[in-house]
């Protein structure tokens, strides 16, 4: 395992510390907890947004704490959902009296832990509600199963719902917008290499030199299938095919996120975007805005995901709204 770390057990602690030291104008840490909140939290009278999950997805979620996006983020151990007590601290630290919306990615652990935290908050009369992001089209949706995973599309939920909260909308409205965003965002990813959880010390899976893993999540878990490495255009076509056949994007405007999983050069993400823009143009889908970079990563995994958010006028205004956070600034 090759990592610039001190102690696998201390990596989240030290990361959070280094994060707060880097961005004191944006964020502060809730003393004694793995919780990052806005430097000026709680923002009085504003609906607060929190998110979180296992660590290892940096800059998610702490990097999106700031004006126009999240109010707080909870960091679990690497790839491990945070515990209810930590989430509860975040809720308390951000609640400005207008209620708290939790943006949860659809994983058994995340859902349960956030749910338990909400139960704790209710006992203290804090209004808490949640939305569950499940944008990954790699997995069939089904009521008999856990359903789809939440992956990079979550960043769009932070952006859009965060802008709605910043505008002063109430909890029900912010939740409605978050749910609309979730209903309109689809993602799919692939990888060329595994990643190594520091405490595990060895790669999450092995791939031959000519193989890639397709349809995988963001926790180093294997994907839906393994394939020979394809040229970038073929990879893009496959990912887009799954996304575009899941909801009807035709004739609409979209926001695109070409997301790196942590170990892929930005160069390659742009090579992908060339093909993405071609395919969307062919299909008459208009690109309103494109984000390219490492937004929701899997440690040092080489790979990428594509997310498409279908926009209407309401979502368009919110995706274009100002944001000022350590990892995403937009004016």
């Amino acid at each position, binding site marked *: 395992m090759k990592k610039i770390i001190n102690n696998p057990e201390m990596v989240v602690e030290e990361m959070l510390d280094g994060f707060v030291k880097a961005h004191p104008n944006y964020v502060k840490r809730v003393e004694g907890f793995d919780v990052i909140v806005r430097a000026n939290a709680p923002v009085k009278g504003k609906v607060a947004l929190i998110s979180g999950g*296992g660590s290892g997805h940096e800059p998610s979620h702490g990097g999106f704490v700031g004006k126009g996006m999240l109010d707080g983020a909870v960091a*679990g*151990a*690497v*790839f*491990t*959902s*945070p*515990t*209810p*007590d*930590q989430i509860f601290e975040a809720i308390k630290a951000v609640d400005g009296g207008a209620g708290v919306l939790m943006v949860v990615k659809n*994983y*058994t*652990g995340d859902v*349960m*832990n956030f749910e*338990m935290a909400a139960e704790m908050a209710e006992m203290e009369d804090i209004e808490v509600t949640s939305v569950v992001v499940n944008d*990954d089209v*790699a*997995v*069939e949706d089904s009521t*008999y*199963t*856990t359903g789809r*995973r939440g992956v990079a599309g979550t960043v769009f939920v932070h952006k859009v719902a965060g802008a709605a909260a910043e505008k002063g909308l109430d909890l029900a409205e912010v939740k409605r917008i978050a749910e609309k965003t979730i209903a309109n965002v689809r993602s799919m990813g692939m990888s060329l290499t595994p990643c190594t*959880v520091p*405490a*595990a010390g*060895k790669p*999450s*899976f092995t791939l031959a030199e000519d193989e890639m893993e397709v349809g995988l*999540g963001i*926790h*180093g*878990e*294997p994907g*839906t*299938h393994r394939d020979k490495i394809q040229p970038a255009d073929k990879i893009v076509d496959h990912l887009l095919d799954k996304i575009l056949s899941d909801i009807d994007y035709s004739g609409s405007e979209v926001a695109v996120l070409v997301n790196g999983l942590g170990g892929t050069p930005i160069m390659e993400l742009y090579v992908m975007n060339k093909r993405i823009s071609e395919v969307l143009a062919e299909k008459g889908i208009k690109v309103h805005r494109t984000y390219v970079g490492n937004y929701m990563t899997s440690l040092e995994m080489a790979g990428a995901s594509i997310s498409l958010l279908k926009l209407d006028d309401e979502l368009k205004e919110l995706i274009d709204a100002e944001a000022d956070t350590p990892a995403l600034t937009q004016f």
Partner: protein
Amino acid sequence: MFNNKILINILSEMADVIKENRGLLTDLDQAIGDGDHGINLDRGFSALKESLDSLKDKDCASILNSAAMVFISKVGGASGPLYGTAFMRAGKEIAGKENITGEDAINMFNAAIEGIMKRGKSDKGDKTMLDTLIPAFEAFKSAIENGDDFESISEKTLEAAKEGLEYTKTIAARKGRANYLGERSIGHQDPGATSSYLMLKVIADVLAKEL
């Protein structure tokens, strides 16, 4: 007689066994999940073990409740809230009780399983810890109701647990992270079912020595 000393022995022994099997559980989880199950449980049990000394004068219900809180606040992931809920529900069944009978044991086991099912929205056949726990519980219950002796109860329970554990290899996951693998999860043993088996085995082993 079952008492708080035995319970603490069990928890302490569980912590050791989980630490020994940390690598195994993590390997199993790497194959079909995210490779942290051993790490998660070890983190929880290590914290639990450290707290056991301070619990030694508490009654069984309180010890289980404290164990549950440690699990819930230290483990995270899916297994933390699930095992935490199981401990909490088991403890609730014997709140205020002095004598813990065979019937109490059945109720505790049952409540633990129900807690997991409710929290996890899961059932037998989803390729989870429940595939170890539910068959084990059924065997345990009928052996007790049958009037079997300790050795036979223990043997039947572990056998059923083992069978359930083996069964997880043959099915595709419908719950938890392994679910995303679909058919690819077939052939792999579920990590949570494995940790449940290890924990049941510890209970049997400690009771065999202590009773």
